[in-house]
């Protein structure tokens, strides 16, 4: 095994660059090193001006999403040896404005987040019980998968619709709405319907399916969206057939 590998990193420094450029770094190639370890090597020993986000380095905080050899990946879960012989191309996540180097701007997602009401909506007349709400393991399995999203934004980077249509709520957010809709303790599905079944909600999705392939945590947002379309269509039909109100 050769002992080094080249990493081509996209640089963009807004106070001096008009457009991104590529900078090549030669780094040691070690079998236990991820792309993140490689970037840390550069930051610590070669070039302290390189900027990127990282924190937990164990695939759970969702900070280090990047485009690695063309695919949206978590840098802490992508091993250098899987990208031999290199050079490994490291770019910021696609579909997001770049703040600097590998750091992208996530404000759009953060601002949209509350619109999906990603919290448990309960019957306000009834106070919660003294004990827990009962929920069987089977009921939990209904939404469990959708609760595993770490907000790493890889699905947004993989989604061509989000690239073309900034108003699209996007995969993770709709999966999150579904996570609460399918929770047996929740009664907020009606409140979320208006936002999620709007044109920029599920109907913007044309089912490319790349979001589910990109997801590092097996959330399957594409599936969540398709399921929601069925629900939304049923609701629309019902309100057409029974125009005098629900039920």
């Amino acid at each position, binding site marked *: 095994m050769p002992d080094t590998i080249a990493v081509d990193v996209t640089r*963009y420094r*807004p*106070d001096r660059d008009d*457009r*991104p450029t590529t900078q090549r770094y030669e780094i040691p190639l070690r079998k236990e090193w991820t792309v993140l370890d490689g970037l840390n090597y550069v930051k610590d020993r070669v070039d302290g001006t390189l900027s990127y986000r990282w924190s937990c380095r164990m695939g759970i905080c969702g900070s280090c999403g990047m485009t690695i050899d*063309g695919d949206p990946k978590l840098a802490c879960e992508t091993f250098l040896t899987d990208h031999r012989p290199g050079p490994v191309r490291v770019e910021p996540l*696609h*579909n997001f*404005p*770049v*703040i600097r180097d590998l750091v992208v*701007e996530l*404000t759009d997602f*953060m*601002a949209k987040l*509350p619109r999906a009401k990603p919290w448990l909506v309960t019957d306000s007349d009834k106070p919660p019980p003294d004990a827990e709400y009962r929920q069987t393991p*089977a009921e939990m399995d209904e939404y469990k998968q959708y609760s595993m999203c770490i907000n790493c934004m890889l699905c947004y980077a993989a989604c*061509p619709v989000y*690239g*073309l249509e900034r108003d699209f709520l996007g995969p993770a957010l709709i999966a999150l709405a579904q996570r609460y809709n399918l929770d047996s303790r929740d009664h907020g599905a009606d409140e979320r319907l208006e936002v999620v079944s709007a044109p920029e909600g599920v109907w913007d999705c*044309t*089912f*490319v*399916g*790349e979001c589910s*392939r990109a997801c590092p945590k097996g959330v*399957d947002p*594409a*599936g969540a969206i*398709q*399921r929601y*379309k*069925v629900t939304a269509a049923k609701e629309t039909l019902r309100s057409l057939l029974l125009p005098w109100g629900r039920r």
Partner: protein
Amino acid sequence: MTEYTGLYQRLYRTRVPILWWLRRRSYLAFVVRELSSVFVAWAVVFLLLLAHAVASGPRQYQSFLAWSAAPWVLTVNAVALALVVYHAVTWFNVAPQALVLRVRGRRVPARVVAGLHYGLWALVSAVVAWIVI
């Protein structure tokens, strides 16, 4: 609501290139599927024309058959057939993700959902074939 306090200075925004759908096989597959709906529509129009011709008597029907045999119509129909099949197949493969069925509390596996779709498709085709032939 949450207030955002960011200063929007020189963010670099990339434009999505016109040929973005050539970047990945899955993007291409997706664009082809979107495009295939035009041919699905064409198949419907063709069927309506056929029905109209049959209803208008043998002479009309004969001229419709002659028109259908024209090379360009044949070509269009061949392409339409391929794309309609493509459309159907991708649609059926998606079905298990959109449709969550439960039998006695257990989720029906994706393969079974897709399999049922294909089975139903084959059955309907067979019935149609039996009526026509």
